[in-house]
Every structure is written in C-alpha cells, then in structure tokens.
C-alpha cells in the first residue's frame, strides 16, 4: 500500500491543485499534500522493515505491468523526495509565483513522477515515470524561469530528452531479448546480452543516466538550467532529480549489463574523476553563487558516479547515503542563495560582502551548509565521502589520490563564497540588508539539525540500504 500512496498522494494533490482558485490557498494545499507524503514515507521506512511491493496489470498487450517495490534504496530516495518537498515549499513560502495553482500543481506532479522512478520495477513504467518527472520541470523552467529561460530550457529539454529516448531504445532491445517478453525488472536481470551487443546497449542506457546526473562532459546543460530555473525547481533538479541518474545506474544498469559495466568501469571512473577536478576548478572562478553551487554539485556527483563503478561494498554504501545527504545539503545551499538573491537583488560575489554583520543568523547557517559541502567530519557528508573514497581507494590508489585533490579544491571554492558573501565590510548591496525571513531560517535550522544528527549517528542510514547493496554486489 505504501508504494501506491507515495505516488498517488502527490499525484492527486497536484491534480487537485490545478482546480484551486489562484491565491495563497494553492501553496498551503501543496505544503499540506507534501507533509502527508512525508508522513507516508516515514511510515514506509519505520513501520515496514520488509520489502513492500505492489503489482497490477497495466498495458496488457505489451506485457507491461504496474509494479512497484520499496526496497532499501527506494526507501532512502522516496524519503529524500518526501523530506525535500516540505522543506522547499516551506523555505519558498514567502515567494509569490505567478499562477500559483499551476506552479504548485506542476511541482507536485514532478514529485509523483520522481516517486514513481524510485519505485517502479517495470521498465516501461520506469520510463513513463522518468518522463512524468521531467515534463513538469520543463514547464516550470520555461514559464517561471529567468530571462534566458526559453533558450536554456530548450537545451535542457533536448539534451535530457535525447538521453531518455536512447534509454527507451535500450529498453526495447532488452525487452525483445526477455524470454517472456516482459518489462519486469527480474526478467531484465535474467537477460544476459553477449559481448558487443551488451556493450552497445550499455551505452544507450548509460548516456541517458550520464546526462541526467550529469557526468563530465555531458554536464553543460546543468549550470544554465540551475541558474535560470525558479529556485524551488532548481532545488528539485539538483537535490533529487540528479539522483535519478545515479539510482538508475544502480538499479537498471549494473545488474543488466555486468560485463559491460566492468569493461568500461575504468573509462567511466576516469571521466568522473576528471569531471570532479574540472568542475571544482571552474567553481573556484565563478562569480555567481548559483553557478558556484552548480559546479560544486557536478564535482560531488562525479564522486558518486566514480564510487559506483569502483564496484565494491564501501563505495556503494557511501553512494547510498550520500544520495540522501547531498540532496538535503544542496537544498540548504540553494535556500541561502535564493534568500540572498530575493533580498539583495544580486547573486554576484563581487557585489556582495559583509552580510554577516547584518544577518548573523543566516551567516551561521550558511557556514554550517558550507562545511557540510566540504564534508567536515560530524556533518552528514563526511560519512558518505569517507566511504566513497574508501571504495575508490580499493579500486585504485592513484585514482583515489587524484580524486582526493577535489576535497582541497572544495575547501577553496566554498570558503571563498563564505568570505565574499558574509565577511569583510558591507557594500552598497548589503548596507541595508536584514536577516532572511523566519520561514527560511526555520527550514535552514531543520537542515542544520539533519546535517549534524546524520553526521554524528549515520548508522540508521547505512543500515537502511544494506539489502540493496548486498543484492547489487551479489548480482555481479
């Protein structure tokens, strides 16, 4: 029951939103729906230790079924999705979007799509939800985005859609190889393509996921999209949607193409590590807080991708909990970025400074986010990075050492941003600045508590995904 509720609550809530009168009711309704979803997700994690499944017939002639399953990794990611939306809605509650009913409706539809992606155990259903999550975001960016939204959204859409279609072709190829002509995950797992064909289809899938994450060099849609989307949507994009790619690699790619994955692991790890250093260096030179966060995020995702393909338990365990922690932390960073831009009208470091004197509370909260971003021990990010680097080290010492340079660079660009925004003397833009509004502050306090709680006692998160890690590693 839980898997169905996780999708249907945001779906129904979102559809209902479109029929609401325009006004503040829309956001209240959206917040309420997201809180109910959160309650369901928490119940799913706490009350049902065993795997939850749901299965019904869907598209009979093709053999596609509406089958959902809630294992450890799905619990983790549906929980992330469910936690994120109330935080996002709460922090942006004072923002007034045009046509709020449609805005919040689309946001909830995206949430439903995301939930479906993390739950589906039928390839066609997975593809369906994959697109369901993407399309509302496309509208959100192109209608409510910044000045360059049309051009940026177009690129974002074409890029990700090309990826999706590659995946669809891949799905069809596998489908025809299944003995029972089924899209079921288990049937896909039983197909073992041989040699060159496995390697070819592997790339169809991997490109789709690599664009989504994104992995260097398929990342150029991302900083633009993050910058131009309305911030609430950017939070969904970077906090949760990038996890679709990582999730899909673990759920759909590794078990179906084990030989090809092993064959290309070195290439992909080298690409990912290159991307980590590349994005970190570019982040150092950014003058725009949003683009800085975007490149920082690319670097972090690169580590996750590399750790997956290291294909050992510590690495995979690290990826699991980092998917959750990175989502929480990056949303925190976006909230601060949005609060600054909304109040001061600029995102440029060169036009900011001295904000700590005017907004000490915001400064403290941002410093916590910043140190989580550089994975200081006792913040949640440390545990994930520790395990991932550990996995990478087991794969190859030198690659781990080179990738490790990114933890130095992360300190450089993150502390740069703290210094340039908050320290020093006030400038024109910050001379009359005030604290961020109470909603923003409370959401950031919640995120801070999560960062520290999960950093001091990460064991529940590690245990949550144990079953998935063991299954994936056993399948190899």
């Amino acid at each position, binding site marked *: 029951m839980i898997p169905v509720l996780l999708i249907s609550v945001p779906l129904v809530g979102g559809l209902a939103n479109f029929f609401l009168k325009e006004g503040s009711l829309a956001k209240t309704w959206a917040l309420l729906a997201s809180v109910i979803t959160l309650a369901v997700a928490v119940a799913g994690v706490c009350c049902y230790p065993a795997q939850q499944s749901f299965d019904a017939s869907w598209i009979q002639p093709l053999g596609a079924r509406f089958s959902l399953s809630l294992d450890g990794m799905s619990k983790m990611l549906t929980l992330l999705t469910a936690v994120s939306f109330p935080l996002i809605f709460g922090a942006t509650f004072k923002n007034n979007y045009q046509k709020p009913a449609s805005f919040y409706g689309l946001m909830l539809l995206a949430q439903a799509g995301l939930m479906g992606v993390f739950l589906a155990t039928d390839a066609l259903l997975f593809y369906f939800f994959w697109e369901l999550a993407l399309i509302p975001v496309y509208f959100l960016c192109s209608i409510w985005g910044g000045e360059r939204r049309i051009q940026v959204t177009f690129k974002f859409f074409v890029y990700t859609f090309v990826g999706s279609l590659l995946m669809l072709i891949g799905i069809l190829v596998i489908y025809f190889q299944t003995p029972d002509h089924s899209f079921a995950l288990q049937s896909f797992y039983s197909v073992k393509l041989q040699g060159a064909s496995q390697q070819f289809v592997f790339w169809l899938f991997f490109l789709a996921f690599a664009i989504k994450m994104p992995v260097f060099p398929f990342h150029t849609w991302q900083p633009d999209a993050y910058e131009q989307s309305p911030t609430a949507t950017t939070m969904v994009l970077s906090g949760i949607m990038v996890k679709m790619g990582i999730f899909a690699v673990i759920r759909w790619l590794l078990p179906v193409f084990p030989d090809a994955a092993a064959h290309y692991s070195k290439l992909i790890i080298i690409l990912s590590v290159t991307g980590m250093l590349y994005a970190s260096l570019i982040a150092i030179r950014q003058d725009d807080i949003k683009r800085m966060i975007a490149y920082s995020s690319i670097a972090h995702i690169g580590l996750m991708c590399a750790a997956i393909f290291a294909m050992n338990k510590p690495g995979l365990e690290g990826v699991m909990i980092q998917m959750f922690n990175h989502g929480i932390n990056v949303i925190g960073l976006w909230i601060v970025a949005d609060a600054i831009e909304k109040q001061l009208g600029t995102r440029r470091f060169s036009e900011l400074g001295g904000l700590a004197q005017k907004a000490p509370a915001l400064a403290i909260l941002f410093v916590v986010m910043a140190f989580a971003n550089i994975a200081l021990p006792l913040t949640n990010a440390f545990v994930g990075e520790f395990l991932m680097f550990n996995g990478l080290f087991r794969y190859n010492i030198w690659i781990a050492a080179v990738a490790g340079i990114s933890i130095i660079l992360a300190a450089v660009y993150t*502390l740069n941003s703290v210094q340039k925004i908050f320290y020093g003397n006030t400038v024109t833009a910050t001379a009359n600045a005030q604290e961020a509004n109470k909603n923003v502050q409370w959401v950031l306090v919640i995120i801070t508590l999560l960062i520290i709680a999960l950093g001091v006692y990460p064991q529940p998160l590690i245990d949550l995904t144990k079953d998935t890690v063991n299954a994936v590693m056993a399948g190899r």
Partner: protein
Amino acid sequence: MSKLVYLVPLFPLLGFLINGLGRKSLSKTMVGIVGSGAILASFIVSLCIFFDVKEHGATVVNLFSFIRTESFSIPFAFQVDQLSSVFLLIITGIGFLIHLYSSAYMHEEPNEHFGRFFAYLNLFVFSMLLLVLGANYVIMFIGWEGVGLCSYLLIGFWFKNDNYNYAAKKAFVMNRIGDLGFLLAVFWLLFKLGTVTYGDVFANVAQLSTFDITAITMLLFVGAMGKSAQLPLYTWLPDAMAGPTPVSALIHAATMVTAGIYMIARSNILYTLAPATQTVIAVVGLATAIFAATIALKQNDIKKVLAYSTVSQLGYMFLGLGVGAYTGAVFHVMTHAFFKALLFLGAGSVIHAMHHEQDIRKMGGLKKYMPVTHITFLLACLAIAGIPPFSGFFSKDEILMAAYGKNPLYYYIGLGGALMTAFYMFRLYTMTFLGNFRGTHEQQHHLHESPSAMTIPLIVLAILSVAGGWIGIPDVMIEHGHQLEHFLAPVFAESAKLAEHHHLEASTEYMFMGVSTVAIIIVIILAVNAYRKYQDNGAENTGLGKVLENKWYIDELYDAVIVNPLNALAGFLKNVVEKSGIDGVVNGVGRLVGYGSRQLRLLQSGQVGNYILVMVLAMVVFVLIWFNDQTIMDFLSKIF
C-alpha cells in the same frame, strides 16, 4: 573513573552550546564563567583520570558505533591511557588558564562577539579532546578537522578585516592538503587490515609489508606537516597570528599544532618499523627548526617572532620523533606548551597595554611599567633558550642527545638552531622590555600592567615554565629522575624493544650540556648588548637581512609556482574549454540537427518534437541495422 571520560569533552561541548545560543542574552560575566568553568570542570575530571590511569593502567571506553559496514566497523570510542591523559592535562589545564585570561583580554568586544569568542574557544577544546581521546584514526580525524574548523573561525574572528579572512582560509586549505594524506593513510589501513582501531592496528602490524608501513607512515606524516606547520606546509601558521592573541597561545602554540606530534607518538610502533620515514621526519624537522629560526631573527612583529619560534620548536619535536625519542618529543610538547603559551599571553599583555601595537621597534622599556609581565616573559625566554634548570633545557637536551646518538650531525645543526633561538628570543625581550620607550606619548601615558585575570595565568605558567622540566631529569643527574619517561613507558614499550640504544658516557653528556649552556649564555649576552640601545633609525635591511625579513620569499614562491598557475588553469577551463569547447560542441550538434531538418524539409521545421522524432527514427534504424534481429522486424511489421 575512566568510564566517565566522556565528561571531559562533554563540558566544553555544553559550554559551546550555551555560549553559542545565549551569546545575545548572557552577560559577559556569565559567558566567562560558563566558558572557563566548562574547561575547569574538564580539567578536574582529567586529573582524576590521570591518577586513575597511573593506578590502574589503560582502558578503551566504547560509546557507540559510529560507522559499521559489512567491510569494517569504526566505533566511537575513547582511548584512556598514559599518553592521552598527559595530553588531557595539558589541553584542559592550559586551556583553562587561557580562557580565564581571555575573559579580561577580550572584554572590549561587544556582548555578542564576546559570547561567540568563548563558544568557538570551547568548541576548539572539545575538538582537541576528541583528537586526543579517539581510540581509532577516524575519531582522531574528526578532532583533527574539528580543530582546523575552530582555527579557521578564530583566525578570522574579526571578520571585517579581509586580510584576516585570507589568513583563515589559507590555514584551512593548507591543513586540508595535509588532511588528504591522513585520509589516504586511513584508507590504506582499512584496506589492508580492515580496522583503524589503535589496539588492533598495532597488534597486527606484522601483516603489513614494509612498503605498506612506509607508505602509511609517510601519508600520516603529510597530515602532521600540515597541522604542525612543517616544511613545506608551514606558511599558514605565521599568518594565523591574525587571530586574537589568546587564540595564538592556545591553538597556534600550546595545543593544536602539537597534534602532529601526538599522532606520530601514538603511532610510534608503525614509525619504529619504518626507518625510512623516520629519517624523513628527522630531516624535515631539523630543516624546519633551522629555517624558521633564521626567519625569526629578522621579524619585528612580536607575534610573528613567536610564530616562527613555534614552527622552529615544532621542528625540534619532529627531530625527536624522527630519532625515536618519543618521550622526549612529548616532553618538549609539554614544556613548550608552558613557556610558549606564557610568551604569547605575555605578548598579549604587552599588545593590550600598547593599544594593539605589535611592532617591537615601537616598544622598549616596558620593564618598569609592567613588572609582572616582564618577569614572567623573561622566565619564559630563559626556558625556551634552554638554560638549566628551566623546563626547556631538559626537554631540548633529551631530544638533542637522542639526535646525537642517531647522527652527530643532527646534534650540531640542532645546537646551531638552539643558539639562534636564544638570540631571537633575547632580541625580542630586549627590544620590548629594556632600553627606552620608543612609542608615542599617548601610548606611554596609557601604559599599565594588565588586570589580575591576565596576570594570574602568567604567574601560573611562569611557575610551570621554570619547574615543569623537573619531572624529566636525565638519569645522569638523578637515577630514575625521568618520571615522565617512566609514566609513558607502556605506550612506547613495543618501540623501545625494537630501538637501538646508544648510550653516552655520563661525562660526555655533562660536557655537551656544559658547552651548549655556555654558548647559549654568550649568545644571550650578545643579543642583549646588540639591542639594548636600539633606536629605530628607519634603516632598511639589505642582502640576507632583507631576504630573512621577507621570510625567504616563500609565500611569493608558492603564489608563482602553485596558486597563480592553478588560477590561470581554472580560468582557462571556465572561459575556453567549458564555453567554447564542450558547450560549443553541444550547441554545434544541436544546430547541425536543426540545420539538417530545415534543409531537408521532411517535416515542418521549428518544432522540438520534430527534431526529436528525426533523431529517434535515425536511432531506431541504426539499432535495427546493428542487431538485424528477426524478432524486432516481426514486431515492427505487425505495427506498421
């Protein structure tokens, strides 16, 4: 008693939370009481633990499981033994004195910042205690980076000043370079042994190859170079003097910077088994000791002299570790903590009286205005110079004697550094306290001795600087006089079995002591004479003097060789590779598809869907050709 060890870090943590959250509502008196009281409480518990360990020996206290995976388990556990209990006493004891001192020194700060300062200071002590108490390398690393965070926050405490912010950032980033080495060593241990718990690691060293041990110890040492400011990662420490002076005393002299020594002493068995690493440590330590001492000869900022002196003294400690004198290194950590904290607090007292003037060229003659500061500072100078029977003499002597046993050249170079130490310290002392006052009338009018909250810590530390060395009197003087060695023996027992013992004749040892003491006294007399009548005539240094005053231009070298090229590379990646390269190709492909579809006019142009349809069809055809699979053909023929 040892079970209650969690109280030691708990008190400062509570102090941090109370002062941090209540910084706006609590009065300064309250903040001072909470902040200092927390550390005093920790000190009392530490004392009890010390006696408990002395009585009952070492234990490990498990709190909870921090990271437990299928491949390894890392408990949140505390190591209560001889080594950690000595460090606990140093940290909480000196920590308390410095907290007390700060309550007067920082009194001019507005309420909110006063509270913030004490919160940071408590958080630092908490992190430092974790570092020392951790029963495995990961808990040590938590404290290791935690003290780095607090150091960052406190160097940049006055965050309106951008130079201070740069110094804070530089300290954190440089430390991170070392931390990467530390982390890689941890991964190496986990990979080879599946554990990072000290007891398990040390019991299973036999499973490690010589290469493994050498690599692990070298990587750990890279971490130590960053934290303990050794060549080539030392340049952050002098800049860290941007922080308030009590911070320099506590973090950048007495405790945090000695973390590297603690780490190596803790891992002594690994290092004893890696002679190659030991040689590297000895050479790096000795080189740092000399190099920093040369720079200290020509600095004019009272805190900068002390900073380079700290770098230099840390070098001696590493020399001790490198030649296997683990007790000697820990002993020097302790005596150095006494006299260097005293020197910094004395400097703070001077800066306080001089209204934030730090240039010793503008001081002089402070002796008669600040008698307590003067006397205690002089005692500290005698201690650091190594005059018997002051504390520094015993610890430095122990290290240098061990160095002689390893390689006489180490001894002679080390002695050279000791002579420089005596010179720059007495240059500093003379220019500050003797001669005539060279500041403004305004300053002279306001000169005053500091309040008792500041002078009491000075007096206590002065007593310790004088007498602190008496727990480590060498055997040649008093049989079994080295109580510290006796106490620490269990920690270094395994290494002692493996180490080669060079025994010097008692007469030789006395001769070395005598000669070095006489040489140091001569140098002191020279220094006092040279600077007693110092007048600031504005003359610029030339030649070597200028090079030393500019710190051998190392910062400029790092900028030219590392920082600027990296910045340029980043700019190139951002503006050229990213924009014109990768994104250019992506946009080019997009345009090509658009162009193609317009030209072919197969479909109405301009619609996203059409582009995509074209792409899909092309891809489907491609796949079909690739697979040439009958089932797909059948399926398609059914549909179309």
